[in-house]
């Protein structure tokens, strides 16, 4: 299995592990807003902040594995695309099709900006997931009262469910691709068109497996008394710190 569980939370030390998950949600949202409205120099600064947090939290190796694809393929694609085609769709009347590549420095700057912006949005989410215990998060969410009303268990269930399901769906996809390869068909070795069609065809078995599993998970959560909360005893040994 290819580090599928790298993406998940693991116990660690440092401020980002001990911070209250709700404060972390708030900080991530602020970071997103800053990212969306920053210029190139601020984006470079925000990227540096990301790396400082990653190194400080001891996530370097896992983080680089997670973002490797982005740096190797997505970021260069965005920059090259902007360098070559920026002027084709800039201006007041952008053409529907842009077949006239024209190298431009502006395109390069915009490409780097778009790439860094995407990186900041993506990596701040990854850091949040890697450093936040889902149990602490749902515990804090279930404590929230809006005008005296608690957030429904079904909403919290969604967090638990998504947290586990995303990883498992990728795991299922890996196994199906492996089974296809064993039967002589590798989606990774075919052209783009066939690959896209192949992935679309995989949606059916993936959906079937996911639905079956969703039902089992819903049963499992019921059996574990999720949402019953008869007695409110905090079992968290870590105190939240700023």
């Amino acid at each position: 299995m290819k580090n599928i569980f790298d993406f998940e939370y693991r116990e660690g030390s440092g401020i980002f592990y001990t911070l209250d998950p709700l404060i972390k949600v708030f900080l991530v949202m602020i970071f997103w807003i800053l990212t969306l409205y920053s210029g190139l120099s601020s984006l470079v600064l925000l990227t540096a902040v990301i790396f400082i947090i990653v190194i400080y939290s001891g996530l370097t190796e896992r983080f680089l594995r997670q973002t490797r694809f982005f740096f190797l393929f997505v970021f260069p694609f965005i920059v090259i695309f902007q360098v070559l085609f920026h002027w084709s769709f800039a201006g007041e009347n952008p053409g529907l099709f842009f077949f006239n590549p024209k190298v431009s420095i502006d395109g390069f700057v915009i490409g780097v900006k778009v790439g860094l912006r995407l990186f900041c949005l993506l990596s701040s989410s990854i850091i949040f997931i890697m450093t936040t215990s889902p149990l602490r998060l749902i515990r804090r969410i279930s404590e929230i009262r809006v005008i005296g009303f608690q957030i429904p268990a079904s909403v919290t269930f969604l967090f638990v469910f998504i947290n586990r399901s995303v990883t498992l769906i990728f795991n299922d996809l890996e196994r199906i691709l492996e089974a296809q390869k064993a039967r002589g068909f590798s989606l990774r070795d075919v052209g783009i068109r066939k690959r896209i069609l192949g992935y679309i065809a995989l949606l059916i078995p993936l959906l079937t497996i996911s639905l079956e599993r969703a039902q089992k998970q819903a049963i499992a959560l019921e059996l574990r008394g999720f949402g019953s909360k008869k007695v409110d005893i905090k079992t968290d040994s870590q105190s939240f710190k700023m």
Partner: protein
Amino acid sequence: MVIDIENLSFSFLGAKKPALRDINLRIERGEFVAILGPNGCGKTTLALCMTGIIPHFFRERFEGRVLINGKDTRENEIHDIVPNVGILMQDYESQIFFPTVEDEIRFQMENFGISPKKMEEISKEMKLSPLLKRNPFELSEGEKQRTIIASILATDPDILILDEPTSQLDSEEREHLLRILRHLNARGKTIILITHNTYFARHCSRFLVIRDGRIVEDTRDRSLLEKAHISNLGIEPINYNWGNHAISTGCESQIVIRDLSYEIEKPVLKKINADIGDGEFILILGKNGSGKTTLVKHLNKLLRVQRGEIIINGNSIEEYSQREISKLIGFIFQNPEHQIFRNSVEDELRFTLDALGIVNGNNLNNVLELFNLKEYRDRSPHAFSTGEKQRIALASVLVSKPDIIILDEPMTYLDFEAKKHLIEYLTTLKESGKTIIVISHYPDYYASLTDRRFVIANGKITEG
């Protein structure tokens, strides 16, 4: 009395026949009960009735009454029933939600307001203390099961139900699980074991046999498991003779493995050397995580050779394209769910032929017939039971007539009848000269077929 079931009948929505009919059952505190029966007979449905999932989660036709510690499952909510009864599901990975063992147990404790002091006690009892910070998905199958049992025990339930707990376990893990169950039973817990494994079930004190939704046997007589007539009920007798040991004959090497090593973060295979002859039946044994599946995945290029060499029919494996190797070697995975991805049974088989560029698909009809799938050729493969899906997966690989067939734990989801069919089919394949490699924790099934055994431990072949 902990469980009292009166006149219970239940049908799932759209089902042609009831899943359970007229069940009357009383189970006393401290009993160790085995529930046996073929696939689809209603064993798991009965377990779900005992937990309150039926009728609260599945609200279809439910008649009769189920009392758990005096609580009527219809009149009480699931979370009122659950502190009395815990269940380890067959697909126990669905019961895991959190990225650490500690959080997994803590979650259950918080839901029921259990004091955190109990964490230490439970983790010690289940021997999980050193694993508390680990991700459950990185643990062995036995450790995953223990994690779930530990979270169940947080509420100290009187009843523990285990649905096919041994299907993924190696012999050592089975023994470990048995010790835990005996210990819990000695503490007064009622244990209900749903299983196809009669050898494991022999440790129980009471035996229920279900067939077509009815209890057809209810006895404390352990000799039931040895009687020939229980095979008519779809259950494997404990002393069933799967055949005598085969006598190996010398033959030309078809697969040669030299100094094969593989590592992913840590060494998995360490300088493996092996020769497999043309037409041989090789059984690969070893504990979970010992490297069995990693070894066979190299044979059809699902894993790239990092160090060492594999020669098939005189040529290095590197000289074969993926298509050529897949034509030569058919691979049947453990879980059939991941091998089925088309919209009809026929389409599933045709996928292999198309992928391998086999134009003449005469074998398709023969294989459909052989696996009793002809009348279902237009049906969605996803609509079948797990045992039937395993049959479709097998058919979809064998349709291309590979010379070498690899099967990874093929018996996991099969009941007695299906197991017998598989052995018959493997016998036919062997007689036709195919080379067969099987990974299994249950060598007895293949006794009559096995030419040689490879035992893998810590990434090395220790016997073979």
